[in-house]
């Protein structure tokens, strides 16, 4: 079992505990083993980066952690609750309360302004931030009333981050958040994620193909062929704005 959170100062508090997670798409001859038994423990408040070749199963893991997809076998414990045993409705409530997502293609609602895209989520949350506050946190206080079509890619991604964090989720899952962005814009997005992680203690998973980004994480997980093939602990997290690729 990979002990991601083995820190010196006492017993770590685990937010996720993953046991023997497997995922098989399809059946028989054409079956694809996306995950072949993943075990991990994630400490609350950690910044975790997942690295690995294309098709190694990173997105699959993240989707199961976030309650988007069902596992074929194994368990995901979230604060001691078995997420893999949840039905569709329970998964929806889980995503609604506890999980924030950021995607490669932003997935903003084109017919809503930046502020409205955020309040779309705050309207259904128990203890949300003010949408303007969330947008200020990602440096977009000046673009509140712009529609996605009027924003750059990086700005759109920061709106997506504001949307994801505005409900104060415990977990933030980011699948290639900088995948569609250039280096400079990408670092600003990463800086926003870093701020959120530090200020709110939001446990953050970031999938990337970019090894440089791993420097800003507490923990780095290396993926290969549906398994975790290696792991790394950074004593010091690099500042995102100093990264470049």
């Amino acid at each position, binding site marked *: 079992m990979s002990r991601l959170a083995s820190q010196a100062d006492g017993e770590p508090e685990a937010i996720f505990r993953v046991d023997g997670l497997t995922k098989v798409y399809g059946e028989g001859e054409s079956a694809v083993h996306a995950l072949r038994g993943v075990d991990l423990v994630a400490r609350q408040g950690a910044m975790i980066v997942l690295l690995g070749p294309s098709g190694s199963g990173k997105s699959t893991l993240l989707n199961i952690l976030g309650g988007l997809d069902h596992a074929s076998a194994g368990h995901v414990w979230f604060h001691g609750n078995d997420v893999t045993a949840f039905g569709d409705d329970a998964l929806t409530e889980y995503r609604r309360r506890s999980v924030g997502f950021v995607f490669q293609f932003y997935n903003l609602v084109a017919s809503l302004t930046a502020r409205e895209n955020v*309040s779309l989520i705050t309207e259904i949350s128990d203890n949300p931030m003010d949408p303007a506050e969330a947008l200020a946190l990602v440096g977009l206080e000046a673009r509140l009333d712009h529609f996605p079509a009027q924003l750059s890619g990086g700005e759109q991604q920061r709106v997506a981050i504001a949307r994801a964090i505005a409900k104060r989720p415990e977990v933030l899952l980011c699948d290639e958040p900088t995948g569609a962005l250039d280096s400079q814009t990408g670092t600003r997005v990463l800086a926003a994620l870093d701020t959120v992680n530090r200020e709110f203690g939001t446990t953050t998973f970031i999938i990337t193909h970019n090894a440089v980004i791993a420097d800003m994480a507490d923990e780095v997980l290396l993926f290969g062929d549906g398994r975790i093939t290696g792991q790394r602990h950074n004593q010091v997290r690099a500042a995102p704005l100093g990264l470049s690729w």
Partner: protein
Amino acid sequence: MSFLRSTLTVKLMRDFWRLRSQAVAIALVIAAGVGTMVMAVGLIGSMSATRDTYYDQYRFADMFAPLVRAPETLMAKIRMLPGVAAADSRITTRATLDLPLVMEPVTARVHSLPAASPSALNRLVLRAGRYPNPRHPEEVVANEAFVRAAGLPLGARMKAVLYGKQVDLRLVGAVLSPEYVYALAPGQIFPDNRRSAVLWMDREPLAAALNLNQAFNDVVIRLSPGEGGKEVERRLDILLAPYGGAGAYPRAQQISDRFVTNEIDQLTTMATLMPPIFLLVAAFLLNIVLSRLVDTEREVIGLLKAFGFPVRAIMLHYIVLAILLSLGGLALGIALGAWLGRGMAGIYQNFFTFPFLRFRIDATAYLVALAATLVPVMLGAATAVWRAARLAPADAMRPEAPADYSGVAVTRLAAALGPDEPSRIIIRGLLRRPIRSVLAILGLAAATMLYVASMSPNGSMDRMIDLGFSRADRSDLAVAFAEPRDAHAFHELERIPGILNVQPFRTVGARIRSRHHEVRDGLVGVEQRGDLSRVVDIEGRTSEAPPVGVMLSGRTARILDVGVGDLVEALVTEGERPALRMRVTAILDSPFGGAATLDRAILNQAMREGDVLSGAYLQVDKAALPQVYARLKASPMIAGVTAREATLRTIGETIEENFSIQTYFYTGLAMLVVVGVIYNSARISLSERARDLASLRVLGFRRGEVAFILLGEQAVLVLVSLPFGIWAGIELWRFLIGQFNTELFTIPFFVDPRVPAQGVLVVAIAAAATAFLVRRRVDRLDLVRALKTRE
């Protein structure tokens, strides 16, 4: 090239298969359009052909000329008139029958039998039994509808009062006549086959009873081909005036033919009005489906063009798809039309007694159906195909930029209207595609309109009947005399035990004229403050005949082009045939009112006759009804009796019978349109929004919350469409009423408030059922896929 083409064909079939459920929804709407069209065109063709063949084979007269009495020798002169191809004299009268199975007296029109020769006019179709034997003067044949309705076996004996004489008649046959395809008794608006009959008997006994030996009182005429008839009519009137001619009239004014023609006209209205509605809706649906397809395939189109694929082939690709999407509708529509047409022909057969009425769809109907289907294909595919053709390869390869929602009006309006973000998504979505939203609203409104306009006639009919039979006519019975009578007849009626109240009326045949305009309709003399029969206007207000002058119906006033204060001339066609000049002192629309109503005393005076009446309304003690009937049946002076209640019952039954069929029919049609519009517009919206909606699901929105966005949009469309639909339906009904009205009756404009309410319900049910179907797709959204693609 051929490889590409065949691959494109594979794509075509895959597209078609993928769009199958939308294709079904489109096909249903096209089927409704094609179906109503095929049905109406088929029925028009079948009815016209049947009518024409029937009239021709049985030599139905082109012109009719009733008179009092003329010697048979006059026929030679009539036959000599230019334009007259053939003329037959006959004897026509009225009688009352006393039948064992019918409580009320039966009113009969009696004609002398046409000659047995094939050249005779108005020949009969023998349906059962045989024709009367000249050696048995009591033998008669009767119209089949009456024989059935009255439950008379062949050989049945009937007591009759024929021209004041008691006679015994014996039924030996049942017949059809081109003259009575629609057998309407005078003064009635629905056939009452149980209480009104048409009899034909040998001419000899009839002549003897009416003192018309070697004489006649009715002429029927066939015109030479190409003869208009106006001149013949004029000459006939001159020729017959000395013999009490009541005025010749053409077939177009013959009551049975008028109803048949009227029905064909109404079918024509239906055929021109209804199918376009469905076909335009179908065009809209095809358009949104194809436009969406072109949108999602812009990259493919660009690729094909970049590879040098000809634009023609790409256009053809989408046109063929549009045709494929419509073909099902065409086939279904033809089947539906044939089925409905056959059903309707069956209903018509109850109304119109044709010897044969086969519903046939001829080549024209198929061609019309095909042309009708091409309309939505062309209209619907045009913009989409054009867009595909115009796409520059380079543009097409670039992914579509996110839709720009920054229009000022749209933003402000949505921000103001939307209480929360999901509602703003809905409102902005609708406002961003204003044309599509408006068209969807129009399509949905068309469904409501169709329902409201089609179901309103019943309310108006009910109201007309209510006006006619409870506000205007409050008598129990109305009796008509064989000939005008003086006050003795009035007292004679009064003295019958059980008759509580008698209100006389006087009718006089006349032609009412103003300059070159003419209306042939009688003058009706009514009592002031009569309680049994009152003058009632179309709004139900009671009125009186004016104390001086004459009151015209609105329709008559329009035809004569006169107003209050103008003079009209009435050329009376009976008695001393005076020409009366009368001032119009009132104009009033009443449901069943005659053309011209005046005070009976004034009419008597103008006719230079004493206190004369043509008949009377009676109030009868219910308990004494059988005895009253017995007296009336035996009374020599009475030629016709109508019982208000029995008439009302017959009308009720007739309407009831057709009402339920009609309800299913129009409910079905309205629902088809709603399902077609909602299903397609929701599916398109789902396809455009799938990514948004899936993202929302990922972000923790529940299924219901996501469905609200998609279906809320449709709900807004439906809600907005309803008032328009109701309004349009009411206006359409107002327009149609103008088409339906005849001299016989004026349908009051009235919309039963339940009809729009039911329309709303029908639309809501159809919309909800469709929403349910689409909702299942929302529930099955693939969350992970939405995150992988850029759209």
